């Protein structure tokens, strides 16, 4: 078992495990939004799980590093926090901050991270970009809120893993990227009601079951 040093503390990790997972399991919190333990090739897209590794000039995403014996890691340097705060502020700048009316209130990953990173939830109004339409009702059983979604892709991943083929996918590009449902009309209500995994995995309340 590889032994690594994190913030001066020596920990043992399972070989083949990601650095992010190894730290989380030992109770060392590293902000993360797009990672699930089961992923073999994590998307590394949220850009929050930065850490510094001795010998590397810039912070790296911990979900992309496989633990190796002797790694010396710091999770809370100022360079790391700087990047994490910026990433979170960027996510908040496209987020419809209306916590009172959001089902994810008090269990929202963004709220947790804002607290952890000491980032105020409200950006100046000139710096917020919200998208139209604000609600997508095309799916028979799910409602999607683009202005809550952080595009972590977890919903796509769980649907894909569970059903072999995901009925959710990314659509459009760049700044306009959203989650979309192709062929969703053929989806059997019962199957979705029984599953609900995407809505459960969503860290921010962007996917909500219509029936629920």
């Amino acid at each position, binding site marked *: 078992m590889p032994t690594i040093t994190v913030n001066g503390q020596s920990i043992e990790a399972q070989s083949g495990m990601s650095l992010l997972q190894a730290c989380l399991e030992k109770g060392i919190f590293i902000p993360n939004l797009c990672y699930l333990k089961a992923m073999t090739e994590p998307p590394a897209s949220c850009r929050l799980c930065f850490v510094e590794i001795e010998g590397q000039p810039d912070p790296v995403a911990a979900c992309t590093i496989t633990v190796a014996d002797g790694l010396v890691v710091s999770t809370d340097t100022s360079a790391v926090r700087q990047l994490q705060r*910026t990433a979170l502020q960027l996510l908040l700048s496209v987020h419809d901050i209306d916590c009172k009316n959001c089902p994810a209130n008090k269990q929202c990953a963004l709220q947790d991270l804002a607290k952890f990173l000491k980032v105020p939830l409200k950006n100046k109004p000139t710096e917020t970009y919200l998208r139209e339409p604000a609600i997508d009702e095309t799916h028979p059983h799910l409602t999607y809120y683009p202005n809550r979604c952080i595009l972590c892709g977890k919903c796509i991943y769980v649907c894909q893993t569970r059903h072999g083929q995901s009925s959710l996918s990314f659509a459009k590009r760049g700044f306009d990227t959203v989650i979309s449902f192709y062929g969703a009309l053929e989806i059997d209500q019962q199957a979705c009601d029984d599953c609900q995994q995407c809505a459960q995995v969503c860290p921010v309340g962007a996917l909500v079951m219509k029936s629920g």
Partner: protein
Amino acid sequence: MTVANHQALKAVFQRIREQADQRKTADTDGAVPKITIGMATCGIAAGAIETKQTFEQALAERRVEAQIYTVGCIGHCYAEPVVIIDHPDSGFAPIFYHNVTAGKAKMLVRQFLIEGDPCFEHIYGAMETNEMIPSVTEFDRFNQEVRVVMEKCGHINPEEIDDYLVSGGYSGLAQALQMAPEDIVAAIQHAGLRGRGGAGFSTGRKWALAREAESLEKVVICNADEGDPGAYMDRTIIESNPHQVLEGMAICARAVGAHQGIIYVRAEYPLAVKIMTRAIAQAETMGILGRHIFETDFNFRIKLFQGSGAFVCGEETGMIRSIEGYRGMPQHRPPYPVVNGLKGQPTVINNVKTLACVPPIIEKGYSWFRSIGTEESPGTAIFSVVGDVVHAGLVEIPMGVTLRELIFDICGGIPNQKAFKAVQIGGPSGGCLPAAFLDTPIDFDSLTQAGAMMGSGGMVVMDEDTCVADVSRYFLDFTQNESCGKCTFCRIGTRHLLDILERITKGEGQDDDLQRLQDLSLDIKKGSLCGLGKTAPNPILTSIRYFKEDYDAHLKEGRCPGLVCRPLIAYYIDLDKCARGCDACVGCCPTNAVFTTSTRKKGIDQQLCVKCGECVVACPPEYDAVRKVSPPHLVPAIERPAQPENAEDA
């Protein structure tokens, strides 16, 4: 391969080559004049198709015997359509004519081909040194260029494999097949070849890694996505000499042990797609690609994949996803494609130019290649030089030539007596350098040190009438549109950068905007997942570093020094220059902002003016009375005489 096999291979190659020779000789009639026309996209855009048709018609009408020979880009895009006429009976050396319109084509047939008068006033230069006409080799443009990749471009017909064979093509592949694969890798390593697609990574090392990777199947991909705005080197090379690229791919495949090749070309390059498809088919028919190449046991098939033109698909992991049929979204590296690429197979991805350097290296040896360019960046650099230069176009120069030599000697400097302001190298990922850097040698490391980058070879030269803040805005608009949307920094961060630049160029910037641009830029560089996001802020960072006074002028004085940003400029008419009674500018104004003053001169109503600049064009050059100023309040007050209906109101 055994010695006997080497003999057999040589014999096979010899036979293919001789047959090509015979076909060519049967096809060409040495006695009749030969008219060579450049027909790459640059030529066609300038009217080469019409030129060619006119030549054909004129030859037929006047019953003149001559052969028309179409080639790719000769490398003088500023002079297109370009025609070279070799008329042996006239006693002149082959002559290079520029801007050959249909009219000129007719004239050349009549006067030169029939009457033997080469029309001296239309000659650009002779192709060979001679007593009568100055030769192009004496011009800076020609004598400073060194051609490795483009050596055959403009000399051979890209649609005929015979042309390539006759000019020595595919002998590098024949030679490589007689070498041990590790010796091919070693030769490329010794040559010091670095990737021409952007980052300048050692090609030899990449191949060595791919060779070492254990796998039954390996892939070679030629990256011809070429997404930088203003860059068109790769397209031109494919349109002018596709076989050199195919040959480079086959040598690479042999070296690393691959049997499949893919050329990733954007679908917006229809001519390149057509020419490349034809080239692959011809090579397969001749046994130069496909199964049992040159009757050996080496198999290598190349397929063409048409991308739909996303910039991010030029990034290697994005490209692999795109070929696999997914969204073109980059993935975290490592694993690098050489270890885990297309469908998990070890994959070498090289740029068109990198691959085109390979056959000459194998053929002429690595020391020959090293003798060109600099120690750390051997070989040549190819740039498409565009913008405010006299001779825009493709140039191939040895690495180490300075920016000044390239822009002022080879490309003829800045037109219209304007001053040089900046040069943007490396497109949207690159940087913007000021005059103080003109003596920087062009090589991978010097450009990176200066804050720009070699990129894939786009170079935009800008004169004093340029606003660098506006240029940054333009590039950010591009990258923001081309961001794939996967990762937070690039997807949202570039949008904020663009937003700030937009308000600066509108004169609505806020005090801390420069600081915010810089801070956010640095975070985006460090935080983004792929090269697109990591380099997107470069135009901003370099332009703030080198042209801070331009940004300050916008922010603090509401002034655009380049007189570009519309909200910050105004037009007025200089009454000392305006000619009494002249009405040239009146009709051109779309909003009727031009009025007649009490002295029968003209004035511009600032309320109505939309700053289109039409009046500048309309004002006759002998008066040249329309002035542009920034900030707008510098406009001298010129009363608009009360109009009849206003008079009634009053």
